[in-house]
């Protein structure tokens, strides 16, 4: 049913006019309510908004992918073609061939029981009619182009054998298989860590540049938009609130909502203020681990099992009232460290001290009573809350367990006080986790941990599953709670700017080993380890003047995987300053200044700029 209409705006590849999506029988507002957008060939449009703003739905609906029961109206044209008037068969030819899609969760977008190579070759064969052999060759070429290391071997692997970053590369390869004119990337980096986010965005920017491919980047992250987009559209509750060139919108936002989002994204990282500003662990140690090692075994074939060191020789001390950040990429052992320090997983070697007491040999029974003082906040707030319990019961449970002497009334009072403290309205107390937003779930998680008034709060990436505004709110809440209750904080994150904001000291982990430890401010001003430097460089800023240049410098190759740790210094294959010595011997853990420690053979030379960059 394609038709060429006269009076087309020349140059628009995709034009959406007054797009509306409604669900039959629902009385609520339309989730997409009159959105009009255009995308020119070779242009990148960033679409920004919070979850639920209708960003993804607009583009899904535009290409016939809206969920069942949706009524789509408006006009969508791809070049001269009227997309909304197309048959399902025509749409099938458009999707994949002319328009590629990349979704947030690469695991659910790949079929688990087929190899990467087979899935990729299928996509190619389907749209180009190539024979199997030729399609497979092309598939391997594509995997190399998206910089998936060891592409030939990866072709024969299944999705679950790849890391999140690798899977996202595969998804991009599939989307690019038929050289689409338009790529729609829906939150492509949200599930990834800083380094990978920068790499995937740099990769997308490169394809857009080299092949004049138009790109729609749907995201809640202004920094991603600043790095890649030419124009930006801000959406809220199904409507467009502001759109324009990226520089104009990000620097001089006109709409108050855009301003609010930008403020949440780019708050100046004030140095963390705390009792131990000189970063020496002044108070008594509330949590300490020494020479901690954790090994995991995994199947390496039908019968063989191999073990690898997830954590090796980690020693750290968390002082009373202190907040210590643990940073590193995914797979560096951050989460393993929190679980081992809380004795939730088996420790291979090393000692763990809680409140000055060695708990290494204690039985599970003795540990349980002590857990009251050390509580954990999880990364995924929804998964960490029992789906069948109400908010009130979730927060009341720790009290039932540890303060059985409390009368039900007194307990309810404490629960309500805690819930009010974390900013949850009384109307929500009877709800279950899946009826809450991500931010509300995380508030429940924090309330559950804080209701026992623990001495130590361990946070495992508590913000990375949330969108910008919720992130900011939860961060402020954590800061306030820490100020009020004086709990020590062990804060695990891949987001360095967050750690800089919240923590007095920071520990950097790389593939399960400590590479640098020191006061956050000093660590940022003058990192002693080249890896710390790279992490700092990968921090994205929502500034269109700076971010594209930073992205252009990102190295596109994959980070090392924990299973393939090289001998000597584990970081040497990514280190610009590596020498023969680094391949030969693992660097020792040495003092690098006041309260600073580092594991690098050459930190003195390179950190002072002696070695060429």
């Amino acid at each position, binding site marked *: 049913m394609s038709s060429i209409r006269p009076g087309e705006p020349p140059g628009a590849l995709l034009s959406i006019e007054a797009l509306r999506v409604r669900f039959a029988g629902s009385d609520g507002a339309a*989730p997409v309510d009159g959105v009009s957008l255009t995308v020119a060939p070779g242009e990148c449009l960033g679409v920004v908004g919070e979850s639920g703003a209708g960003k*993804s739905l607009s583009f899904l609906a535009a290409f016939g992918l809206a*969920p069942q029961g949706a009524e789509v109206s408006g006009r969508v044209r791809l070049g001269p073609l009227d997309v909304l008037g197309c048959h399902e068969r025509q749409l099938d030819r458009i999707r994949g061939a002319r328009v590629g899609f990349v979704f947030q969760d690469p695991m659910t977008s790949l079929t688990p029981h087929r190899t990467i190579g087979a899935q990729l070759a299928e996509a190619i064969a389907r749209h180009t009619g190539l024979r199997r052999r030729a399609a497979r060759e092309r598939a391997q070429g594509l995997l190399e182009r998206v910089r998936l290391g060891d592409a030939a071997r990866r072709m024969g692997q299944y999705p679950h054998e790849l890391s999140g970053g690798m899977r996202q590369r595969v998804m991009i390869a599939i989307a690019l298989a038929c050289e689409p004119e338009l790529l729609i990337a829906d939150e492509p980096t949200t599930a990834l860590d800083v380094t990978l986010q920068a790499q995937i965005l740099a990769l997308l920017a490169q394809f857009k540049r080299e092949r004049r491919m138009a790109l729609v980047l749907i995201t809640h992250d202004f920094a991603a938009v600043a790095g890649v987009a030419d124009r930006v559209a801000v959406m809220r509750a199904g409507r467009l609130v502001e759109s324009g060139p990226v520089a104009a919108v990000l620097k001089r936002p006109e709409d108050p909502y855009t301003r609010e989002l930008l403020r949440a994204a780019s708050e100046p990282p004030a140095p963390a203020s705390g009792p131990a500003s000189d970063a020496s662990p002044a108070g008594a140690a509330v949590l300490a681990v020494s020479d901690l090692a954790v090994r995991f075994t995994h199947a390496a074939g039908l019968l063989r099992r191999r073990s690898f060191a997830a954590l090796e020789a980690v020693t750290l001390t968390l002082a009373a009232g202190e907040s210590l950040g643990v940073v590193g990429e995914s797979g560096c052992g951050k989460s393993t460290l929190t679980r081992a320090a809380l004795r*939730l997983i088996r420790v291979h070697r090393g000692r763990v001290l809680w409140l000055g007491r060695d708990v290494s040999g204690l039985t*599970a029974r003795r540990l349980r009573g002590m857990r009251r003082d050390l509580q*954990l906040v*999880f990364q995924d707030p929804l998964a960490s*809350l029992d789906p069948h319990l109400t908010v009130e019961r979730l927060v009341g449970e720790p009290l039932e367990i540890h303060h059985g002497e409390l009368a039900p009334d007194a307990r309810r009072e404490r629960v309500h006080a805690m819930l009010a403290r974390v900013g949850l309205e009384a109307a929500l107390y009877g709800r279950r986790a899946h009826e809450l937003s991500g931010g509300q779930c995380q508030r429940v998680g924090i309330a559950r941990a804080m209701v026992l008034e623990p001495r130590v709060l361990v946070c495992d990436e508590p913000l990375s599953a949330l969108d910008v505004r919720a992130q900011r709110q939860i961060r402020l809440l954590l800061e306030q709670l820490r100020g009020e209750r004086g709990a020590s904080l062990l804060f695990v994150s891949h987001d360095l700017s967050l750690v800089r904001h919240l923590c007095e000291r920071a520990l950097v982990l790389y593939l399960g080993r400590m590479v640098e430890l020191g006061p956050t401010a000093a660590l940022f001003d003058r990192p002693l380890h080249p890896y710390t430097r790279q992490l700092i460089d990968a921090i994205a800023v929502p500034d269109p003047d700076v971010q594209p240049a930073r992205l252009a410098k990102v190295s596109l190759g994959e980070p090392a995987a924990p299973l393939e740790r090289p001998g000597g210094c584990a970081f040497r294959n990514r280190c610009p300053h590596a020498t023969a010595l680094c391949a030969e011997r693992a660097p020792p853990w040495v003092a690098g200044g006041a309260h600073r420690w580092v594991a690098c053979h050459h930190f003195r030379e390179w950190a002072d700029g002696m070695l060429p960059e």
Partner: protein
Amino acid sequence: MRGSTRAFDMSRSEWRRGRSLCAAAAVIAALVLLALLGPEASPYSYSALDWRHLSLPPGLTAAHWLGTDSLGRDLYVRTLYGLRVSLTIGVLSSAVSLLIGIAWGALAGWVGGRLDAWMMRVVDVLYSLPYLFIVLVLAALFGRGNVTVLLLAIGAVGWLTLARVVRAQTLSLKRREFIEAARATGLSAPQVLWRHVLPNLAGTIAVYATLLVPQMIIYESFLSFLGLGVEPPRASLGSLINSGARQMLTAPWLLLVPATVLVVLLLSFNILGDGLRDVLDPTR
């Protein structure tokens, strides 16, 4: 936003399922009431012989409105009496199966390792024994027509599948983050099992239980049909169908009446199980 649309889709089909769920529950309730009160409300007893009306066909004006069998026993009373026996055996043996199955499966799944392997091998061995063989042995030991033996025989097989289902569910629940969260809070293993594992299994178990009851009734009917179950003059739906089948050509009502009741009963339980699964899943 995709989530909200899914929730919306669900509510519509939920409403449709809700109706059939209520209908099925109503039919079951009605049958249970009939089984309890029906025989008492009738002037006839299940074993009384009426020599004046042998093999009477059903008819609204007749003395026995659903007819009689070749010995002149009232089919209406006998069917409801059989329903009562079948339901009792079905519910009791299901309850026994549930208790054993849940405890066995949850323990194996939670503890894991060697204990799990041993417990599951026991299940495998019991599975591989022919069910009829167990029944024949028990019948030879304790005599035919013993209801306790019948319960034992049926219960011995009923819990096996449930134990496997519960074990698999426990295994996957065990890896969920909220279980780790509970351990981090300081709950002991029994507390975690009781507060977080079992409640989240409730949906699966309820569904399985509603499917188990009809299965048990089928087992019982099958055994009675073979003559290994309830002995005359007492009756169960299975034994009634058995004797009805023998006179299928001369007195078809003797087969059709109890068979219809059995089919309606089984169908209602199956619909109820399907509906319950949706209602009890907290994320829907």
